[in-house]
């Protein structure tokens, strides 16, 4: 018997937004409790049963690259940082952000740009390293897992490289954006290895989104 189609979804707001977006096919599962694997009966809509995997954002491409999940939803910030060997099927119309360099408001951006060894706090070391390498600027990276803004606020680092949505967290902590590295989007990714049945089911799921102009 073919395994169900497994879709890896990040916890939190993206999980809700993704379910709403694909509601015509996936329905709206309720009473999830603390379950991490949620079965959804999609045999009529997709021709195969589905399981939703509820994961930490950065773990989504891991499960998809291994082929344990055939499909995943994740931000391009995670994909550009980790560079997993996966297909990037669809850009979703929600969850867009930008990757930016930010510093304390009172700092002189020109002086920062001329500093010989800039200290940078970030959750995205590869992205940050590549950006500053392009500028020809030497950086010392401090990798943080959360509340990256504090790195600059408390003087651990000169600047931060982090994801920005509305900019409110930066403003509320006395930081300003100095430049934008890239716009980030939420994408549907897929494992390169999949069965024909799963491929057809995924194509049907993508077609249901009807976002291709």
């Amino acid at each position, binding site marked *: 018997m073919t395994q169900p189609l497994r879709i890896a979804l990040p916890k939190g707001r993206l999980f809700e937004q993704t379910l709403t977006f694909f509601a015509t096919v996936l329905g709206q599962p309720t009473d999830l409790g603390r379950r991490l694997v949620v079965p959804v009966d999609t045999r009529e809509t997709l021709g195969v049963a589905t399981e939703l995997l509820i994961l930490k954002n950065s773990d989504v491409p891991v499960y998809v690259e291994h082929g344990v999940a055939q499909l995943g939803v994740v931000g391009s910030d995670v994909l550009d940082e980790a560079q997993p060997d996966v*297909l990037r099927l*669809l850009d979703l119309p929600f969850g867009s952000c930008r990757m930016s360099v930010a510093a304390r408001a009172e700092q002189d951006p020109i002086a920062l740009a001329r500093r010989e060894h800039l200290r940078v706090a970030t959750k995205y070391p590869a992205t940050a390293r590549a950006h500053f390498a392009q500028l020809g600027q030497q950086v010392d990276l401090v990798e943080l897992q959360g509340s990256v803004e504090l790195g600059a606020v408390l003087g651990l680092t000169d600047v931060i490289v982090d994801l920005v949505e509305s900019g409110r967290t930066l403003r509320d902590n006395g930081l300003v954006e100095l430049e934008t590295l890239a716009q980030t989007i939420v994408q549907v990714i897929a494992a390169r290895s999949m069965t*024909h049945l799963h491929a057809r089911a995924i194509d049907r799921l993508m077609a249901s989104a009807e976002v291709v102009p």
Partner: protein
Amino acid sequence: MPTLATNPAAASLADRVRSRRAFITRALRLLEHWDYPEADVPLLAPYDALREAIGDDHAGALFRFTDREGRMLVLRGDVTPAVARQFAHLARERTEPIRLAYANRIARIHRDFALERTESYALGAELWGPDSIGADLEAIVVCLDLLADAGLEHLELHIGHVALQSLASATLCPHLEPAEIDALAHALSVRNRSAVARSTAHAPEPAREALLELASLSPSDALLPALAALSPAGPLADVATRLAQTLEQARALHEGVVVALDPGARNDRGYYTGLRFRVVCAQTGETLAAGGRYDDLMPHFDAQCPAVGFGVRTEAVLGRIPPDAHPADDGRLVFDPEPDPVTALAAARAERQAQRRVGIGHSDRGLR
């Protein structure tokens, strides 16, 4: 008096080796039946010769070291170019097709972001000479026959061409700048329909539809004829037409096996130039065997010779062979060497020479 006993710990070790050996022996016999004699491939090869043939990235993935004379060598990791280098002289000397099979230990580690896969054994076959659909189908048929003979069922065959997406991008969107064509080809390679739609916004509608279909995971059978029709004369039409015929004839040969177009077939070894196929487990999508056409590899070794072949992922296949296909442990006669080891060992030897399995039951392992 001997006792009959089984040794689960030793049995599980021996089972794995026995299973692999039984599978390899059976596979080589099958390949020999198909006129693919076994060829021995050297353990080491010059790095520079392989790097020229398969490129820096793929040669760099192999284990390299320097010998006492300062020459850089690679450990056998990808047998196809090693076989090509070793036996290219046959292709220069003969005009008839050359068939070779191999089964060798290799050292290859495949690394992605979160995935590290070790390959320690290579089993496969190569057909040099004919550049035809018939030759491509022969490689496919022999590969599937080998897997079926091992007891594997519920297989799918995915067939593609490594140049299909790049040819389609360049041919159907000639109005794009070279960088835009590269971006379109990349969007196709990751199947990003949003990006393909953006890139083809100003393309004629039939071309746009065909490219969007090419970005899907399960394109319809009408795609290849549509691509051929959109470009009546040229490499895209040739590739699309030949691929359509190969698919049709592969389906005729393998009723009961899902045969699907894989529009995203990749040159992931550095030497594939045309047909690329994979046999996958229909339940999980795991690749069990893969192969393709590599017409530009032999000229690196001074042999002008088209070629097609395949390799089996031995570890993946062994994990899927049905349990009753494994040789059973029927126990062995165990002789106690105390108090008279001479008599016990003589008796054990007599039983062994009568083709029975024996063991010596030392009571003290003596390990400290």
